[in-house]
C-alpha cells in the first residue's frame, strides 16, 4: 500500500463524514485565520507607527529644554522657563565644530486662539526659522513659506496647516486672507500640505509664523529669545550619532555645564521613538498571537477528538483490514493521513480566510494589515503538524486494536 493509495482511502473516509470533518476543519481554520490576522495587524500597526514617526522628518534629533535623567523622570521646568534659546540654535547651525549637522529648526510654540471673520479656532502658534520646512520634511500645498526677510522684519505673515485653514475658512484656498491672533492681524501666505496623520497630536493643525514675530509680538514671555524645541537635521542617517555628540557637547559648552548628568536639555532621536513604539506593538502582537495560538490548540484537540470517535466507529473496518493483511503501520498511517488532511484543509482554508480578511479589514477599521508570506506558510505547516500530532494517539490506538476483538465488534 503506497502513499497515494493511503491518501485516497483517507480522503474517502474524510469525505464520507462530511459534516463532522467540516466542523473539525472549522476549528483549525479559525485558529489559523486568527493567527495570520493578528500577526498581520501587528505588523501593519508597526509599519503605520514607524511611517508616522518618520513623517516628522528624517535624520532628526529633537532637543527639548529640561533634563531627563532616566526615561521615567523629568527634571527642570519643562515649558515654564525654557533653557534653550535662539542663540543655541544659531550656534548649532553656524559652528565649525558641528560638521555633521545640516540644518537646525527652532520652534517657539504656544496654543493660541485665531480669528478669521466670525470663525474662531484654537491651535498651536509656532514661531520658526526658514529651515523649518526642510528639516521637518514638510511641503506647501499653496502659497509660499516664511523667508529670511520675514524673520528679520518680524513680518505679520502666517502659514496655516491644512486642518487649521479648513476650520477657519472652510477651505484650504486661503492665501491672501487674514487671521487675527492675540490682537495682531496676520496675512496668510501659504498652506502646508496635509501629512494625513492620525496620531493624537495633529501635524495639520498648526499656524506657522516667523520666529521673531512669535517672540516679539505674539508669545512674548520672560525671555523673548527662549525656544520650545529644536529639530536638528543630520547630514545623513549614518551621521546621526556624530551629530548627536556635536550638539550635546556644544550645548553643554554654551550653557557652561561640565557634568553631562546635569544637562538642562534633552536630545532624543526618531530612532528611539520608533524603537519604543515598535517594541510596544511587538509585545501586543505577541500577546494577541498567543491568544490566537490557543484557539489553534483547541482546534487541534478537536481533531484528536474526532479521530478518536472515528477509530471507535470504524473498529470493525480496522479489524477487517487487519484480517486481510494490513500491518499495524499501514493502519497507523491511514489514520495519521486522515488527521493530516483535516489539519491541512483547515490550514489552507484558514490562510485563505486570513488573507481575504486582511484585504477587507483596512477598509473597515482604518488600520493597515501586512500579510507576511512567512506567517502564512508557517501557519499552514503548523496546521499540518497539529493535525498529525493530535492524530498520533488515535492512530496508534487503531493500530494496536487486536484484529479478533475488532472483527467481533458490531
Amino acid at each position: 500500500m503506497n502513499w497515494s493509495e493511503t491518501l485516497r482511502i483517507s480522503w474517502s473516509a474524510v469525505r464520507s463524514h462530511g459534516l463532522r470533518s467540516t466542523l473539525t476543519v472549522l476549528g483549525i481554520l479559525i485558529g489559523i485565520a486568527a493567527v495570520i490576522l493578528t500577526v498581520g495587524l501587528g505588523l501593519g500597526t508597526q509599519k503605520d507607527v514607524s511611517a508616522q514617526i518618520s513623517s516628522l522628518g528624517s535624520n532628526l534629533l529633537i532637543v527639548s529644554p529640561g533634563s531627563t535623567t532616566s526615561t521615567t523622570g523629568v527634571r527642570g521646568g519643562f515649558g515654564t522657563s525654557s533653557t534653550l534659546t535662539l542663540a543655541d540654535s544659531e550656534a548649532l547651525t553656524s559652528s565649525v565644530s558641528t560638521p555633521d549637522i545640516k540644518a537646525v529648526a527652532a520652534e517657539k510654540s504656544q496654543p493660541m486662539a485665531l480669528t478669521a471673520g466670525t470663525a474662531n479656532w484654537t491651535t498651536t502658534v509656532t514661531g520658526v526659522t526658514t529651515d523649518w520646512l526642510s528639516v521637518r520634511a514638510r511641503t506647501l500645498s499653496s502659497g509660499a513659506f516664511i523667508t529670511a526677510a520675514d524673520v528679520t522684519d518680524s513680518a505679520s505673515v502666517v502659514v496655516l496647516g491644512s486642518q487649521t485653514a479648513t476650520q477657519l475658512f472652510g477651505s484650504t484656498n486661503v492665501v491672501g486672507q487674514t487671521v487675527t491672533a492675540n490682537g495682531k492681524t496676520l496675512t496668510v501666505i501659504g498652506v502646508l500640505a496635509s501629512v494625513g496623520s492620525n496620531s493624537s497630536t495633529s501635524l495639520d493643525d498648526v499656524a506657522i509664523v516667523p520666529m521673531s514675530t512669535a517672540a516679539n509680538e505674539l508669545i512674548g514671555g520672560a525671555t523673548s529669545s527662549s525656544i520650545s524645541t529644536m529639530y536638528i537635521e543630520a547630514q545623513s542617517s549614518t551621521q546621526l550619532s556624530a551629530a548627536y555628540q556635536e550638539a550635546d557637547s556644544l550645548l553643554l559648552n554654551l550653557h557652561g555645564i561640565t557634568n553631562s548628568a546635569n544637562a538642562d536639555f534633552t536630545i532624543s532621536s526618531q530612532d528611539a521613538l520608533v524603537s519604543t513604539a515598535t517594541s510596544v506593538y511587538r509585545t501586543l502582537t505577541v500577546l494577541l498571537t498567543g491568544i490566537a495560538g490557543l484557539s489553534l490548540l483547541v482546534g487541534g484537540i478537536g481533531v484528536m477528538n474526532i479521530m478518536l470517535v472515528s477509530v471507535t466507529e470504524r473498529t470493525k473496518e480496522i479489524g477487517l483490514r487487519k484480517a486481510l493483511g494490513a500491518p499495524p503501520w499501514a493502519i497507523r498511517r491511514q489514520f495519521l493521513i486522515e488527521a493530516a488532511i483535516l489539519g491541512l484543509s483547515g490550514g489552507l482554508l484558514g490562510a485563505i480566510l486570513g488573507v481575504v480578511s486582511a484585504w477587507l479589514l483596512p477598509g473597515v477599521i482604518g488600520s493597515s494589515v501586512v500579510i507576511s508570506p512567512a506567517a502564512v506558510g508557517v501557519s499552514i505547516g503548523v496546521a499540518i503538524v497539529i493535525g498529525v500530532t493530535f492524530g498520533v494517539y488515535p492512530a496508534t490506538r487503531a493500530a494496536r486494536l487486536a484484529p479478533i476483538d475488532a472483527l467481533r465488534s458490531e
Partner: protein
Amino acid sequence: MVDTTSGTRRRSSAPTPEPRKAIELIGARKAYRSGTIEFEALRGIELSINVGEYVAVMGPSGSGKSTIMNILGCLDTLTEGQYRLGGDDVDDMDEIDLAAIRNEQIGFVFQGFNLMPSLSAWRNVEVPMMYARVPKEERKQRAQRALERVGLGSRLENRPGELSGGQQQRVAVARALVGEPTIILADEPTGNLDSVSTMDVLTLFDELHAAGRTIVLITHELEVAQRARRIVWVRDGEIMRDEVNAA
C-alpha cells in the same frame, strides 16, 4: 508462499503421491482468563489438513470451533502447542509477520460478509492485494478475474448495498481467492443467507474444491458441513470425530 500456491495449482491437475500439509495443529491448547476464572477453549487439538482438502469443522456453539477459526486464521495465538501453516511455524510471530501471513496464506469468508460499504465490488476484492503491494493495473485485472470466477463479472462497479446477500458473499469469496492463499477459511459463510443463496455459495465452494483449493469451513449446520469431503466434529474443546464424508 508463491511456491505453495503454484504447488496447489499443479496438484489440481496431477495429484502427487505424498500430499503436502496445509495446516498442522499439534497439541493445541488455548486458555482464556476472565478475572480469576480460567476457561480452556481448546484442550489439546491434533489436526492435520492437506493441500486440496475440503474440511468442515462442525460443532455446537461453545464447542471451541470459533477459537479454532481464530487460531487457524492467525487472528489469535495458542497458549500451548504448535500451529504450522503452509510449512511456516506461526507461533511466536509478531503482529507484523502475522499480518503478512494472513495476507499471503489465508482467505477469509465471514458470516457477515464484512465488505466495505463505500467501495465497489472490485475495490473490495482489491484490498488484500494492496497490502501485498501488487501493482495497480495487475490488481484491477486480478480482481476482475476473481469476480468473473464467482460469477459476478457484470457487477464490478456495484457497491455492496446494491447486491443481494448471496452476491455479497460471492464478492467476499472473490476477495478470499484473489491473493492465491494456502487456505480459504470460511466462518459460517451461509449463516446470513437464505436457502437459495446458501446453495449458491456452497456450489461455488464445490467448484473451488474441484479446482484444487484448500477449504476449511466452520459451521454448526450439518446440512452445510455435509457438502465437505471431511468433517471434524468438535465438542468442549476437543475433537470427537474426524471422518471422511461418504455423501
